[in-house]
């Protein structure tokens, strides 16, 4: 190899190193710009909402009758829906999570259908199912049951329909993850299915169940599309917080709409934080395999 050739290859190498370093810087800059753009797009509306009006206007707007009524309706309907969801959904999820039967995957898919269904479609579907002229409308009236449409019961049904699939899906996964050994042992120790569910499966799946319930609760609090179709928007009976936002907005009362918006945002943020914390506890508590260390079997006295 001649000296000229070797020096020539060195300059080539330097040039290549320069271009690759430049390339890396360019990629980093583009990545930073993209992250900044996405974050700005997601965060700007939230910042705008929170800073739109001064604190005293915000507090004043929380006190209007539309807002207080909506808070009351939202709390009551969501609480009832939540209790029903836990009571019926937990045993349902346990059975689906712990047993294998023909058609199980069909049931699992059907459970998830409301998750992907547009809320307005859910509302119209509930209307043609339970409304006065719907599939079960006649049956309800012959049984002497008042039709739920435009009543508070309809709000609860909407929340249940759109929100509980979130709980069911998470709860089924949480029960599936419970180690068979614990349930087998519980059986040999004389525990029937109810005791196995309440004393073993639910505690072992509790973090997963809690995270799923939190997500479902958040979805229920925000429910709008199905409710406005099936339950209407009547202040004090069916007007939940999201409906009140729309009511204030269409009544040209932007300040009041924003105030309720801030309130809902705070609730959502609290739920998100709770579910994240629960999920973290879940992942750390599911590692139940015994440590394989050789500590003395003679316990300290």
């Amino acid at each position, binding site marked *: 190899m001649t000296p000229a050739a070797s020096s020539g290859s060195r300059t080539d190498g330097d040039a290549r190193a320069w271009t690759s370093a430049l390339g890396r810087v360019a990629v980093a800059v583009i990545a930073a710009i993209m992250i900044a753009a996405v974050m700005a797009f997601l965060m700007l509306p939230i910042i705008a909402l929170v800073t739109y009006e001064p604190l005293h206007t915000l507090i004043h707007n929380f006190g209007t009758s539309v807002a207080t009524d909506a808070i009351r309706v939202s709390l009551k309907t969501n609480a009832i829906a939540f209790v029903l969801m836990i009571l019926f959904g937990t045993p349902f999820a346990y059975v689906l999570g712990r047993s294998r039967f023909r058609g199980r995957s069909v049931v699992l898919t059907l459970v998830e259908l409301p998750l992907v269904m547009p809320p307005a479609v859910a509302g119209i579907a509930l209307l043609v199912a339970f409304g006065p002229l719907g599939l079960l409308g006649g049956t309800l009236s012959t049984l002497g049951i008042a039709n739920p449409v435009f009543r508070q019961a309809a709000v609860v049904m909407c929340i249940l329909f759109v929100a509980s699939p979130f709980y069911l899906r998470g709860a089924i996964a949480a029960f599936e993850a419970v*180690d068979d*050994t*614990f349930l*087998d*042992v*519980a*059986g*040999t*120790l*004389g*525990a*029937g299915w109810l005791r196995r569910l309440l*004393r*073993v499966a639910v*505690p*072992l799946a509790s973090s997963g169940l809690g995270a799923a319930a939190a997500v479902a609760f958040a979805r229920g609090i925000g429910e709008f599309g199905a409710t406005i179709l099936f339950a209407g928007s009547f202040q004090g009976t069916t007007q939940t917080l999201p409906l009140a936002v729309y009511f204030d907005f269409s009544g040209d009362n932007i300040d009041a709409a924003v105030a309720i918006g801030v309130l809902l945002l705070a609730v959502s943020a609290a739920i998100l934080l709770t579910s994240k914390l629960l999920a973290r506890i879940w992942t750390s*508590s599911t590692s*139940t*395999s*015994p*440590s*394989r*260390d*050789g*500590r*003395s*079997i*003679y*316990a300290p*006295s």
Partner: protein
Amino acid sequence: MLVGPSGAGKTSLLRTVAGLERPSAGRISLGDELWFDAQRGTRLSAERRRIGYLPQDYGLFPHLTVAGNVRFAGKRDRPDLLERFGIGHLARARPKQLSGGERQRVALARALARDPRVLLLDEPFGALDAITRRQVRDELADTLSGLALPTLLVTHAFEDAVVLAQRIGVLDLGELVQIGRPDELIDRPATAMVADLTGANVLRGEATPRPTGSLIALEGGGELVSSTPASGPVQIAIQPWELELADPAEGAFADLVVSVRRDRGAVAIRCARVTIQVPSDKAGVPLPPAGAPIGVRVSPSHVRVLAPR
């Protein structure tokens, strides 16, 4: 006590007895109680069988304390059981905080709180290291002899069975190959697999009948005299302590030393074809180094001819 290699069906058998798996055929009963009968369609669920079942790793409930685990079985506190197993001071500890031996005691206390009619133990030492294993095994042997409770224990390790069992059943590929006392299995293994499990050397050869027994030409060279009559291709089993060292030219067959290891009162000389065990007090005689050619001698009465498969 059931012994067998992994995949032999030991755990499945235990789970079937526990009522956790449904067999396609057969009958399970304890005393006068019928637990399962495929023909009659009888099946008692696990929670009604009154068994003390210890799965591998013991299956202690991680969300309950030691006292809570024991209470789960009997629906009331059992400080007496905790004291009996020396875990009273651990009553409020969680299973995660316990050592392997402590876990086993909690699992035993919990199983006994159920007031079982039979104890089922699945690989009780599977999760333990060698030192803990020996301690826990001796402890379990004491506990079991004090309980006077019928116990079915499965393990893959024959030495566990020897310490713990009165009768050993050997499972292979889902079949019960042999059942007997530990010494019966060592002296009269039914198959090469049983012999191998007891730690015996298994050799192949061609037997020719003789007036008193047979002469066996070994695969790989050498000849052995056996007091058992036999002919044709055979497998033979000889325990390591029945083999004797000889000069390379003198033995019944020749072998090469691979390693020499001292182990609790004995010396194990691992060779290419067999393992020889000599007592330590005889080890004053110079031992052959690794790589040395040796001869191997054995008394005809120790050359067990195994039943052909």
